[in-house]
């Protein structure tokens, strides 16, 4: 398990995703956002370096991003998004490159789906005060259908949650959260593809204290893997932060947690800032935006 020291009374995470096709273009903006904060941890939440098939080119693009993320000395971690499949390298190979650049993400257990399901432990005075949990939310439903032998498509013309065909955090990964979490320690969850509950926030705006904008349909998971409801039920998860969408940028409160969907960094230059602290001993979360 990776460990980060909590040096201040506040632990600050910057989350960005969808950095676009050009690392050269994305890196200066990322560095600007990081310098403006500055964070303790930068999470590159999927669709990081996209569309590169040559391993050396990939490594140099990844190192540009890593250098920008670490511009103020912060650690960084990655999760994989649907477009990270569109590189010539497998997710495991990409992770090896990121790890060689100091990335905290670990490959994760073999018997659950995906690469990079892992926990980063945030310690203060030798005690874990916060867990940052990362998931692989896969890519499109075709893989979910193929891997588990669905005789028909999961995407239907009149869907419950989304017209898109996104995979997401699957039920076996939800069970990994249940199996491995310590309900006494607060947790933050990060992954690329929003859960159906994220997509329902704008439809239930007043109920959830909707904060932000919805400019397009939320590209959420098609078959609900039960992650948000399980996290709410466990009671120690403070927030679940996702990406995938290009322009949607919102937060909402649901089930005692904060759910967030950030816009594409390449499109908007917006990062989500998630600050954890303790107020009177109670865990406390503050969310906001930084625009580079």
């Amino acid at each position: 398990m990776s460990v980060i020291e909590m040096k201040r009374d506040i632990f600050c995470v910057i989350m960005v995703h969808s950095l676009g096709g050009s690392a050269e273009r994305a890196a200066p903006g990322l560095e600007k956002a990081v310098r403006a904060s500055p964070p303790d941890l930068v999470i590159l939440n999927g669709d990081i370096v996209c569309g590169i098939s040559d391993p050396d080119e990939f490594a140099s693009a990844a190192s540009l991003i890593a250098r920008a993320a670490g511009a103020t000395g912060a650690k960084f971690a990655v999760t994989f998004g649907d477009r990270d499949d569109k590189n010539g390298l497998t997710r495991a190979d990409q992770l090896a490159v990121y790890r060689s650049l100091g990335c905290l993400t670990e490959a994760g257990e073999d018997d659950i789906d995906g690469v990079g399901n892992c926990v980063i432990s945030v310690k203060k005075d030798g005690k874990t005060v916060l867990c940052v949990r990362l998931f692989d939310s896969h890519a499109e439903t075709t893989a979910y259908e193929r891997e588990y032998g669905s005789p028909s498509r999961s995407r239907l013309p009149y869907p419950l949650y989304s017209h898109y065909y996104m995979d997401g955090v699957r039920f076996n990964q939800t069970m990994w959260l249940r199996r491995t979490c310590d309900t006494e320690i607060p947790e933050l969850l990060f992954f690329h593809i929003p859960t159906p509950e994220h997509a329902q926030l704008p439809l239930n705006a007043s109920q959830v204290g909707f904060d932000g904008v919805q400019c397009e349909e939320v590209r959420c998971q098609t078959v609900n893997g039960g992650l948000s409801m399980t996290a709410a039920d466990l009671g120690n998860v403070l927030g679940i932060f996702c990406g995938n969408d290009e322009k949607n940028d919102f937060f909402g409160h649901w089930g005692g947690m904060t759910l967030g969907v950030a816009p594409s960094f390449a499109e908007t230059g917006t990062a989500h800032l998630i600050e954890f602290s303790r107020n009177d001993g109670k865990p406390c979360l503050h969310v906001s935006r930084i625009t580079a």
Partner: protein
Amino acid sequence: MIKDYSSLLDESMKTKMTLRAKSDGSFRFICVSDFHAQPGRLADERLPKSIAALLDHTSADLMLILGDLTHEDEGLGSYELLDRYIAQFSAPLEERGIPWAHVPGNHDREDGIPTEHFMKYPHCLSRRGPSELPGYGTFILPVYAHDADAESDAPIFVIYMMDSHTGSSMWGLERGIEDDIGLRNMTTGFEKDGGVYPAQAAWYWDCSRELEKRFGHKIPGAICMHIPIPEVRLIPHNQWLTHMKGELEESAGISGINSGLFAAAYERGDIKAIICGHDHINAFSGFYMGIELSEDAGLGYDVYGTDRMRGGRMITIRESDPGRIISEHVYLKDIPQADWVNTEVDDF
């Protein structure tokens, strides 16, 4: 909090009577629901007559009552009357020696219909289920081959019975969270109904895996409960692509929360059907990703309903190939014995 529910498998499967296929290798169960008995009186006399007609027509080996046995929080108002009501509707079952069991619905409250009042009937297999689970009616009914040794052989089929709770706001109230978690989705509608909680989805997952580990193969099964999981709404909204059979006269009422039970069943690959009650004038089924999702119509005469749909969902299993179930809605109107049926008049 329990991390692994597999240790609850034996307790979850403990039944006072072994359910077996007939000597011809077939086993049939029928699901009915929504009796909605009102406080202060017994159920309409057509209810036990309907149960008798369905049993005789289908020669079912097991009847499952999927919730809303009573209408109000107080049940029937007194346990004395509750006992007379249970005796009333279970008489056809007990007289024929046919096992039966129930799960609670959103109208039922535990102090209104305590499970012990059911369990004293010799053929009633209802249980409260392991106390570690939320609710008061989550347990497993295993079905064995006609010549199996229930002590050592694998069941041919397992029926996961689940309490789907009441309203979505109850989840928060139980945890000191004031906000209602029931969320409207893209299909819109009233989404404040309860549903299976994450601990029950985890219980299904762990028990299903433990069964496979113990017997070396997946045991096919069905999940029965009152409030439909959200995915049930996909069937009437996508009738052609889901090969819908049956009909609707009201919007399919679904759970406002989603604990991922459908995804769990899909990833495990052993659940053939998810059968629900809740709606009174819907009787339909359809397939989503290889799992049949269905709603039976309400059978009760003390609440809105219609003789055009009254009946139950009948599932037939053969021990030679228990993974291939035969599922159909049996209509009371098709049973000659049910001569009181009047499809011209609605009861609401």
